[in-house]
């Protein structure tokens, strides 16, 4: 089989520092995005375990598979999880979700946890859209803007370019800085046109690194406009898969004149993590309502 340069590493993780979680309130968030799916389980609002996998052709199966990985790692049964929030584009397809919440709300909440309460502006760069979100010190959304017109300028667009140039996706960011000269930024409006432009640049003799620099710059230009439109308020953080691509992150930082906060967890799990936190709050609300009635 030909090498799949786009394929990013799926991940599973269990918190090595959390040993006394038995008896804790377990909540989960499952984020089915267009490109990746994450499941996060928290114990009393502390991250216990997560899995991040590729979203397959069946969203429901993706949710089940991601959650099964977490269950295997922790030895938990699904019934032990008290409340689950489904989020992301496929949120209605999480078969075991108790409630659905949009990814915009969950990303703000998750970013607040990962990057701390000083975060006010979040850029979520997902598989097929990007979002600029403003939130308060509690991770509550104050305003947001989304751009989901095309896969160009998103994770899926980056995957297409990785395959086209034969560069492993995890290397794209670093290699984009190896370019001494940079061609004009590639279109960020249409991934099909972007592919054509990449082919044209290669035929003109530009190196892969130079073309990658142009593509990363185009992606940064596109999201910077979204950030400008929604307003930049510090602190700033980036979530989603593209947050792992320093070729885009550094260029966004330069364009906006800011530095993105560094988090202690995988940027890709922000939505699911936010979902698990929302799940805890919703459960508490339900308990309070139960006590009143």
């Amino acid at each position, binding site marked *: 089989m030909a090498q799949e340069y786009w394929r990013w590493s799926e991940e599973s993780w269990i918190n090595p520092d959390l040993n006394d979680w038995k008896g804790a309130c377990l909540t989960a968030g499952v984020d089915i995005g267009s490109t990746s799916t994450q499941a996060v389980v928290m114990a009393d609002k502390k991250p216990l375990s997560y899995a991040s996998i590729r979203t397959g052709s069946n969203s429901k199966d993706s949710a089940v598979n991601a959650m099964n990985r977490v269950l295997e790692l922790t030895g938990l049964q699904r019934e032990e999880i008290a409340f689950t929030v489904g989020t992301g*584009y496929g949120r209605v397809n999480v078969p075991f979700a108790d409630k659905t*919440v*949009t*990814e*915009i*709300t969950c990303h*703000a*909440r998750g970013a607040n946890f990962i990057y701390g309460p000083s975060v006010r502006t979040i850029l979520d760069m997902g598989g097929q859209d990007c979002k600029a979100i403003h939130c308060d010190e509690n*991770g*509550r*959304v*104050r*305003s*947001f*803007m*989304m751009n*989901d017109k095309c896969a160009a300028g998103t994770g899926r667009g980056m995957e297409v370019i990785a395959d086209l140039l034969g560069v492993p996706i995890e290397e794209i960011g670093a290699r984009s800085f190896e370019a001494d000269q940079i061609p004009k930024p590639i279109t960020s409006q249409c991934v099909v046109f972007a592919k054509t432009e990449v082919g044209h640049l290669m035929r003109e003799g530009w190196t892969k690194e130079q073309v990658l620099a142009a593509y990363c710059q185009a992606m940064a230009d596109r999201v910077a406009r979204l950030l400008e439109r929604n307003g930049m308020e510090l602190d700033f953080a980036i979530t989603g898969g593209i947050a792992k691509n320093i070729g885009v992150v550094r260029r966004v930082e330069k364009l906006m004149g800011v530095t993105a906060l560094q988090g202690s967890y995988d940027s890709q799990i922000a939505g699911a993590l936010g979902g698990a936190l*929302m799940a805890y709050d919703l459960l508490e609300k339900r308990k309070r309502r139960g006590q009143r009635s």
Partner: protein
Amino acid sequence: MKPTIAIGNEYIESWKKAGKKVVGTVCCHIPEELIHAAGMLPIRIRGTECTDDRDGETWMTGYTCGFCRACLQNLIDGKYNFLDGIIVSDGCMFIQRLYDNWAVIGNTECKLNINIPRNHDKLAVNYFKDELQIVKETMEKLSGNEITEEKLNASIDLYNQTRALIREMFTLTKGNEPKITGTETLQWTIRAMSMPKEIYNEELRAFIDEAKQREPITNYGARLMMIGSAVDDPEYVRIFEEHGGLIVTDYNCYGTRYLWSDVTRQEGESAIESIARSYLEKLTCPRMTDLHDEMYEDMLGLAREFDVDGIVYVRLKNCCLWGGESVFFYDKFEKEGIPVLTLEKEEITTNAGQVGVRAEAFVEMIEGN
């Protein structure tokens, strides 16, 4: 809930069978009273029911607004073959282009294009009165009926009854116990522009009386007001209402703006003068250059009156009237503590899921997550 009335519906069929004529308009600044007074049925042309506008795009190009392209497509597809006449205005740039194209390729018996001033001073009202005189004469010729002062006054009275009923219908979305949805109100205003007002007024009266007896709607998270370009598809409104919102009022030329403020009479005015003045005074969209501040005051007043939690600002792609208004929105509403969700829209909705995510997130934001 009644489904949205079809373009070619049973009322139009009966009307035509009786040997009477139908005249279509596009912009709500064209006074239907003049068509009605000639004994003809005025209906409003819409883009609803269009699922593929490729001919509209071929004629008008992709640089025009999707609403006008869909209207042209519906005309080309023969959905408006029952029309005997069509009156278009320079309500906006692309409606004008719609007329230009239909004037060349269309088969409608009578095609009339009028100019409507963009301000409302005395000079403008006089000019508009002259334009309406042309409409009057054209309608008399098309129908074979003279439009007398008495007939025109009777039409004004009938239309004012419709306006009063529509305003009454919207009271049912007010307060803590709303009885009807925004999907329904848009269905009813569209119904008003698709059938004889005499029958419509009776139907709407019955609907209001029935709706008053309903249990209040409780399964919503935020009271929303939809403002912006022409939204003639209640299914678009339904997206918001299926994601936790309740559209309690609007500023939409197919919604409240169609028939809201009465045609009023002033001492010494003829009926046509009253119509000219009232239509230029009515607050509808940013086309009226000397009523811009008043329009925002009116929108804000409605938002307060209907206890709105958030504004959904919808702009059709390439809309020459509402496209550039966002610069004012944040200042006019957010300063008042009313959040705004801005959405770009195509006439043919193919992104219901994407709109739904935004709608739901907006409601979650208002609810405090």
